[in-house]
């Protein structure tokens, strides 16, 4: 009985991602340092910051494609390792060539079994899992459409299904909202939020504009000028906290609808609209 309790306690305390004094960079060049953050199960986190601030670098470290320069990083209870099946990844795109006449179902199934060698035709079970994944992103009607014929928003849903098909615990989405119009951006965000809540998966989403994300987020991570601020949006995105972090006057403006704009750290983040 006591043992059982301990297991439960350790589960609730366990963090999916834990970084201590983490420094990111390529070789000699440091992109950011002193990253201290942790994310638990089922959290929806937005990562914002100027271009080249090191947002994608964080993803590459989580995926085990790049090593930390210093500090420690633990992902899903261990060091990051390449090919971790518990991570679903949607890279920054890269559009699919319009002549690619391969049906969407095929790509989603490859998300499940693309690593397996051999000419084994896809099993009925794999097909069902792929259809379930498509269903969960409201893209079941796209199953037999060719990849090359999809719009940007449709393609993002297919990529999301491809990432979800293996039932990951952690979802890394690199700028899924770029190239989407306002309506499709809102639709996709609702979809990601649904996935996070229903599947209890932790999602890290890199975005350019924080505002459409604010209603859904649990936490926000702001990366700029080699430093990282992490926490609840209301705590991180204030003039005081960002000014203290960056040692320069940073202004966080809010409009009556709750939209924010960050001014003072290179380019501003968040369009008021």
């Amino acid at each position, binding site marked *: 009985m006591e043992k059982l309790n301990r297991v439960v306690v350790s589960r609730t305390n366990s963090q999916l991602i834990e970084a201590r004094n983490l420094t990111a960079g390529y070789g000699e060049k440091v992109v950011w340092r002193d990253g201290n953050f942790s994310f638990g199960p089922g959290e929806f986190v937005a990562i914002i910051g100027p271009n080249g601030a090191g947002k994608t670098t964080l993803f590459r470290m989580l995926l085990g494609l790049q090593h930390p320069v210093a500090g420690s990083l633990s992902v899903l209870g261990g060091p990051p390792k390449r090919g971790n099946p518990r991570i679903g990844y949607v*890279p920054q795109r890269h559009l*699919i060539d319009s002549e690619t*006449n391969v*049906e969407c179902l095929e*790509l989603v199934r490859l998300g499940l079994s693309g*690593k397996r060698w*051999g000419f084994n035709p896809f099993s009925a079970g794999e097909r069902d899992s792929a259809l379930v994944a498509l269903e969960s992103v409201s893209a079941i009607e796209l199953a037999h459409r060719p990849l090359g014929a999809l719009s940007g928003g449709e393609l993002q849903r297919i990529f999301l299904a491809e990432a979800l098909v293996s039932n990951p615990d952690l979802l890394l989405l690199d700028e899924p909202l770029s190239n989407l119009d306002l309506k499709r951006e809102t639709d996709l965000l609702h979809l990601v939020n649904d996935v996070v809540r229903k599947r209890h998966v932790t999602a890290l989403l890199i975005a350019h504009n924080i505002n459409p994300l604010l209603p859904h987020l649990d936490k926000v991570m702001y990366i700029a000028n080699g430093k990282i601020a992490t926490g609840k949006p209301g705590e991180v995105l204030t003039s005081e906290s960002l000014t203290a972090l960056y040692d320069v006057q940073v202004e966080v403006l809010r409009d009556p609808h709750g939209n924010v704009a960050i001014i003072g750290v290179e380019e501003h983040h968040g369009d008021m609209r």
Partner: protein
Amino acid sequence: MSICPIQPFSPNIISDVQNMGCFEFMQHAIEAGTLTAIIAGITGYFVVLRRSAFTAHAFSEIGFAGAAGAVVLGIAPLAGLLAGSILGGVAIAILGRRVSNRDTQVGIVLAFSLGLGLLFINLYRGGYATATYSILFGEIIGVSSWEVNLTAVAGVCIVVAMGVLYRPLLFASLDEDVAEAKGMPMLFLGTAFMLVVAVTVSFAVQVTGVLLIFSLMVTPAAASQYLSKRPNRVIAISVALALLATWIGLFVSFYTNYPVSFFITAFAFGAYLLVRLVHWVASPQKPATPAPATSPR
């Protein structure tokens, strides 16, 4: 062994085919052509999917330099062809897929290889024109039984290799970044595929020659892409089209005495045009007709 009667073309296609098959050189040609069409049809799908057609063409030109060099040294041209294209394949694979898609650099290497081949051919004094012609435009009619056996061995190796690579290669071709993040050995996959392409090109050169390599490596696969959205079916159709073009090409060439390579190229091209036309007619959204207003964009 009976002596084959030389008969003109008759309306009876079956007896025509029997008559053609009676000749040993035609048997060899059919065997080598069939094997080549199968491997070119399979490999061609991935060449088209990965947009590596130009690279595949470059292999054949590098192979030309190798083959011409082999002729000078008195070795079998096929050996030089294999050595040249495999060397090119490994080099391009190591440089990476992003490099292999750079038309300019590939084109520069291609032009130099062709020039090098010309020099080698010039150094070779005996049968200057014949050697050049057969490497550039194919010599399927002159294939020996030894070459047929070698083609069979290579064909089996390629079919097995493609069977093993199939799913990871499909994944890596459609979604390189995710495949890499999932821990796929990208360099290995790229190199293995380039080797397969290099070997396929070398054997396809026997049939179509260096300059007409696209007719078996690219055209059937490109045409079949329009006929299915499932990769395994596209590959099957691609093989079927390559086989048809080769068989009909051999048959027509036998009775008209015009070059086999021309007919293979022509039938492959005809099939491609036909497929595009049918696809265009059957496709629901034609660019000419205005789409119904569904979305504001």
